Every structure is written in structure tokens, then in C-alpha cells.
């Protein structure tokens, strides 16, 4: 049902990670996650320049009905956040893999990327419900 692009990596927490050409990683929440949360009304983004270990809560997405933590998937430094979301959180609903990206990070090492799910594994995770 939900859209799962093949060129991205995924976490069990329904985040996606895209490897950019400049070696940075862009992170967002998946189509499934935005669908499950419903209309997003507020997004708290991480502070640029903060250094965080993987798995740490760094952002919060709030819909009308619930708040959900977003974890930094790879240890590293936040280099950019999507400031458009402060006025237009609905971009995450409308385009979760595009204009609705949350932040970009510079990973301390690329090793952790190997632990991420590929699109097939993420699809399986969703099937298991």
C-alpha cells in the first residue's frame, strides 16, 4: 500500500535515509509513518551542529492525534534542517521522501549504514504489521 522507494535505506522506526552525492545523509519519515500519524501540525527539528549518537531522540513530529519521536539513525553531526517545516509541517504528509525531509547529517562513519534495512526488508517489516 505505502510507497517504499528502492534507492533508500530504512530503520525499524519508520525513518528513511538517503545517501547524497556529497556523502551526507538525508533523513525523513516514511510514507507509512506519515500515513499512520495523520495530519502533521508541528515538527521540532534538531539543532544544527549538534553531535549525537545513533538512536538518540533528535526530533519530534506531532500530528493532531499524537507526538512521535524521531531518532538520529547514524551517529554524527546535524548539518542542515528543513526549515520549511516550521511553517508547513504538512509537507511531510504530502511528500515524505521529497520536500518533507527532516534533516541532513554528516555520519561519523559509514559502518552503521550496513545495519539499516533495504526497501525489501522494510516492506517485510510492514507486512508483519
Amino acid at each position, binding site marked *: 500500500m505505502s510507497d517504499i522507494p528502492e534507492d533508500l535505506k530504512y530503520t525499524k522506526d519508520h525513518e528513511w535515509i538517503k545517501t547524497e552525492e556529497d556523502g551526507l545523509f538525508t533523513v525523513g519519515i516514511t510514507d507509512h509513518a506519515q500515513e499512520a500519524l*495523520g*495530519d502533521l*501540525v*508541528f515538527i*521540532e527539528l534538531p539543532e544544527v551542529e549538534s553531535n549525537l549518537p545513533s538512536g538518540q531522540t533528535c526530533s*519530534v513530529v*506531532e500530528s*493532531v*492525534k499524537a*507526538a512521535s519521536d524521531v531518532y538520529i539513525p547514524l551517529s554524527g553531526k546535524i548539518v542542515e534542517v528543513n526549515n520549511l517545516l*516550521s511553517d508547513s509541517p504538512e509537507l511531510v504528509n504530502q511528500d515524505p521522501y521529497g520536500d518533507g525531509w527532516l534533516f541532513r547529517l554528516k555520519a561519523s562513519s559509514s559502518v552503521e549504514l550496513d545495519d539499516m534495512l533495504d526497501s525489501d526488508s522494510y516492506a517485510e517489516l510492514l507486512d508483519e504489521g
Partner: protein
Amino acid sequence: MDKINKTYLYSQHQKLGAKMLNFGGWHMPLVYSSQIEEHHSVRNNSGIFDVSHMGIIDLIGDRTNDFLRLLLANDVKKLDKLNKDFLALYSCMLNLDGGIIDDLIVYRLSKDRYRLVLNASRFDRDLQWIKQNIFDDIEIVLRNDLSMLAIQGPEAEVHLGGYFNINDRLHSLRKFNAFELDEVFIARTGYTGEDGFEIMIPNENAQKVWTDLNNYGVKSCGLGSRDTLRLEAGLNLYGQEMDETVNPFESALAWTLDFSSERNFLGKKALQSSSNSVVKRKLVGAILEGQGVLRNGYTVYTDKGEGEITSGSFSPTMSRSIGFARVPSDAEGKCKVSIRNNKRDIVLVKPPFVRNGKIIIDRN
């Protein structure tokens, strides 16, 4: 016991692609497409909600009026007025400590026949309490044969009137009045802060009425938008603002208590003995300054002591977060709320926030 109930509109909701949730032991639609769009359609046009999970019972017998004057904290004597329509009354049903067992609407159908509409999550407890106190010559009839739909919004009258071909009749129906037309019970009541109707119809007609009203332009709306609408309208939700440990004074429901006669009602003694000493807390509205969303359970810090957010959400009409807070009785104005360990500013206000499509309170 633990089986989840389905309304007669269950397959309809699925066909319409609703996201479902378990609410009070019932499979109910949370949202069909966008909760915010559904909310706006009720404020600006019209929407239809399945509220068949609510319990409908009729009480029949010569002494029903006497019994209800004992059972309910508001006085059904107010319904005795001569009127061509049935009259409705909002009331709490209290335990002997004055705690709220349920909040309900009671209709007077005739001298010896009354109808109660009860919360789904409280239905078993309500019935148990009613049976425990009822007079032997009063009959309780469960109206499982009826489905209940709420058609709400400024265009509700036009669409419902057009559909049943009763425009004039509906136009002259006053708020909190009801009538029966063939097998359809129509009341000008609701839970959204907009004009609207709640109708009770035989189960077998529910799907057709729903589809037909959709075709008239009445949008399907789920319980998600029902919640943000009632929050903006300043209306309590059982389980959030009310339970058996709080009394009506602490729930902004003093106006529903009728002490005007010598009448005894269940819970009255406790309220009278303690009304001066026990009412240490009050329920008020809260508006969050800046971004973020208030949620149930967040701690509120006032200069008179701590309180708690009982309901909180995002107000689609005001584009900011609002909620209800139970706080010390003398707290007012600006105070703080803890959101994920950050202290944030809120302002305590007197609800409603929004009525009939217009923002009544706002703070910038």
C-alpha cells in the same frame, strides 16, 4: 465481554477507506482522509459522524419522572414544559460521593417515557447503576435496534431537511428539541459547537441514509475531527475531563447541577457537604504560546500549585494548540506546562474557544 463491537455502518466505513480505532469497545472510524479537512468541513459546510456506539435506552413507566429526578443531577422537571416537540436535557449521573459516573442526554418522549443517550465506554457501568437504583415498576428497554448519526455544520439543516423533505419542520426546530417522523428521531443537538442534528434510525436504514447524505454533500467525518471540534467548542469528554473521582464542580459542570428544589438526587449530599471544602480544583481552557501540542497528562505549573492537562490537541480553526487543564481553583492567567521536560508558556482561559465557525478566544 472483550469482543469489540461493530456498528451497522462498519462495512461502510471500511468501504470509504476509514482508519479505524477501538473506542469504548467499538470499532469506530478515526479518520477517512484528513482529520483537519474533516474538521473544517463541519465548521464551514457539513459533516456526518457515526455515533451508533453510544448507548440508547428508553425508560418506561408512570414513575419514570420521579426516578430520573432521583438518578440525575440536573432536573428532568425542566422537560415538563408544554411543547409540541420533545425536549432534551444534559445531565451528569453521580455516584454517592458526587463523582461522575457518566454524562448523558435525556429526552422526554411522553409523560411516562424517557430516552437516555449514554457514553459507549460507560454503558455497562451506567446500566448496573441504573438497575441498582431503579423502581420495580419501571421498564428498561435497550434500543439496540437504532443507529445514531450526527449531522453537523452550518449546512446540516439544508441537507438533512432536503433529504427527508422536511425543510420547514427542521427550520422551526429549536436547539435541544426533538421530534419523531415515521421511524426517524431527529434532535437539534450535537458535540461540535456548530448547528446540527443527531438522528436515530432503524439499523437497517443506516447505510442508505449515510450514502444518500454523502451524495447531498455531507462529508464523512471520523472521531478524530469530532474530538478537535468538541475541544474547540469547550465540551468535556468522559474519561478525560470526567471520571468517578471528580465531581461536576471540578469539571466546569456546576451549571448542570440543579439544587433549586428540595429534590434529593444521588450524590447531592456529598456535593453539598463538601462543595465548599472539596472544590480545590477547577477545569479551564488552556492555550499554548508558540509551537507544540498540548497532550493529556502534561503537568501544569501555576503560582497556586500544580495541575494537569486533561485534553489537548491542535485546533485546526485557530492553528495553534489548545486544551483543558484541571488546576487549583484560584489559578488564572499565565502559567507553565511541561512538554518533554521543557517548560512552556500557557494561558488559562474560559472555554469555548470556537462557536458557530468563529474564534471566541485567542491570544497572541
